């Protein structure tokens, strides 16, 4: 199996730990010396950079939350003089003040190196013609993947997102073989390509999807509709952008670029580290980032780390598909529900399309959840009972998975929202008490 950097990707776990320790010590000291927020937090916890003598000593450093970073908007996390910063990105800020990401030249090199690894791991090569359908903007996704593909040597079509019919025409005319997009936009593109009667005329062979959590069922749907191999990659603006981890063709978890990112799993309630292999919230520390280091950043992403060897030969630890951001989790009548659980029930089910919307409401102390899906099989209209059966089949499957009762609403095809970037499928209309 092809690798971009076999030396790092196949390095033994002990050698990797030996590489990580001095980098961690450097990164902690760099943040302490140059970013007041980290210095104050560490002082308050009574810890100095010299106290980090082993990798596990990291647990004594306080965690950093999204809220902490927001307070440093825009440039108070920058650890070098502004003249050394060559790029500024920002998170979308949909849930509040945006978070900025500042990069030096070395940071951009590190970033594209990380992406080159996951591109090759996902089957990409310099033979590929690559359609990048992430929005080119402050968002890290497009520029990150762009730089990685440039390093690998693919021919990039920097088409950005939107104008979907044109995307399909360009894909056909330019003979694109690789697609970079969010899973939800890739799904919408497939629908449009099908409607245009073009999907069988494309040369697309691989898809590298990321920037939002998605399920195995969604992957299967994307692979089936496009006729491609789909891999997933992971990252976030707060620590650099995409490139933290990516799947190889075995699709059994995303290999982490451990030489640049130190990942831990903590209990989302208490913040205490959990034993390897347990599910919890991922916490990331950058090991080489110069412009804007991140120390013990709480991603709010719920996952699990896997150390068992992968058939591809890489020895880098893998993270499981993210189950959902802890702040995406809905609490319905006291039961924890991740939108990804609902997706896993709906996508691929016969009689309905893969798009869905979740609406949460309340009356007094009672929460109600409604799941809207599009019917896509006209034969169901022959008999009224068929539609009712479909509805109760979906309701039953949701109840089995979620342990709560959902109202299921069938709607006409192509009436639910489609997304050109990150999907937003949940509408929570509950009045806060």
């Amino acid at each position, binding site marked *: 199996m092809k690798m971009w950097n076999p030396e790092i990707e196949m390095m033994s776990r002990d050698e990797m730990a030996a590489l990580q320790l001095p980098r961690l010590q450097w990164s902690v000291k760099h943040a302490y010396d140059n970013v007041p927020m980290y210095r104050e937090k560490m002082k308050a916890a009574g810890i100095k950079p010299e106290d980090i003598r082993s990798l596990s000593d990291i647990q004594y450093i306080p965690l950093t939350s999204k809220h902490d970073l927001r307070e440093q908007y825009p440039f108070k996390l920058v650890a070098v003089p502004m003249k050394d910063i060559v790029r500024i990105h920002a998170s979308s800020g949909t849930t509040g003040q945006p978070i900025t990401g500042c990069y030096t030249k070395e940071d951009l090199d590190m970033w594209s190196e990380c992406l080159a690894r996951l591109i090759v791991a996902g089957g990409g090569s310099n033979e590929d013609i690559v359609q990048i359908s992430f929005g080119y903007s402050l968002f890290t996704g497009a520029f990150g993947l762009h730089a990685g593909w440039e390093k690998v040597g693919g021919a990039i079509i920097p088409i950005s997102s939107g104008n979907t019919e044109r995307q399909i025409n360009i894909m056909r005319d330019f003979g694109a073989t690789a697609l970079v997009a969010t899973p939800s936009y890739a799904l919408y593109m497939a629908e449009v390509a099908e409607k245009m009667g073009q999907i069988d005329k494309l040369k697309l062979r691989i898809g590298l999807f990321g920037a939002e959590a998605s399920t195995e069922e969604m992957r299967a749907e994307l692979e089936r509709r496009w006729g491609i191999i789909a891999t997933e990659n992971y990252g976030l603006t707060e620590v650099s952008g995409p490139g933290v981890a990516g799947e190889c063709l075995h699709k059994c978890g995303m290999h982490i670029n451990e030489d640049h990112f130190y990942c831990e799993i903590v209990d989302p309630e208490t913040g205490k580290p959990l034993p390897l292999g347990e599910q919890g919230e991922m916490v990331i520390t950058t090991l080489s980032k110069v412009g804007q280091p991140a120390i013990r950043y709480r991603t709010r992403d719920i996952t699990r780390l896997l150390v068992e060897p992968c058939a591809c030969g890489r020895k880098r630890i893998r993270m499981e598909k993210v189950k959902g951001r802890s702040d995406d989790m809905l609490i319905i009548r006291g039961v924890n529900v991740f939108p990804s659980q609902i997706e896993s029930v709906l996508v691929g089910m016969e009689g309905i399309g893969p798009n869905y919307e979740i609406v949460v409401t309340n009356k007094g102390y009672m929460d109600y959840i409604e799941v809207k899906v599009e019917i896509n099989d*006209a034969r169901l*209209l*022959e008999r009224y009972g068929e*539609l*009712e059966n479909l509805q109760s089949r979906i309701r039953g499957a949701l109840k089995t998975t979620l342990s709560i009762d959902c109202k299921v609403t*069938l*709607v*006409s*095809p*192509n009436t639910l929202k489609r997304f050109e970037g990150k999907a937003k499928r949940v509408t929570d209309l509950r009045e806060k008490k």
Partner: protein
Amino acid sequence: MYVKQISVFIENSPGKLADFTRLLGDNGIDLVSLSIADTTNFGILRGIVADYEKAVQIIESAGYTVCLTDVLAVTVPDKPGGLADILLLLSENEIAIEYLYSFVRNKGSNALIVFRVADIDKAQDILRAHHVNFLSQEEICNV
């Protein structure tokens, strides 16, 4: 002599039915007969139109889910017991009716009944043997 019926999925929310009938109207499609069954959250509109192929194309490209079904259309004397005679014939022969709807176009004469049964050929043979009058697509649309 089957008649082609269109079935369309309509969401049960304000304005959806109006939107759909407006679509037909704007495209010069006359709904000759119409039946709607609904639950609290969706409905199925069933109807007969003259040019069903054109209608399906227009309805589909407007984004609706639509299917074509073979149904039987017969005339029944518009007087008490008219329908019962026909239904008795079918039940005596163990033919289940999935649904039916009626419409009257001319005052006082015959009622027209459209129905869908599980075994459409058998139903047709039986009714024909009893001289029930069938209508074709064209006949329905020109009543």
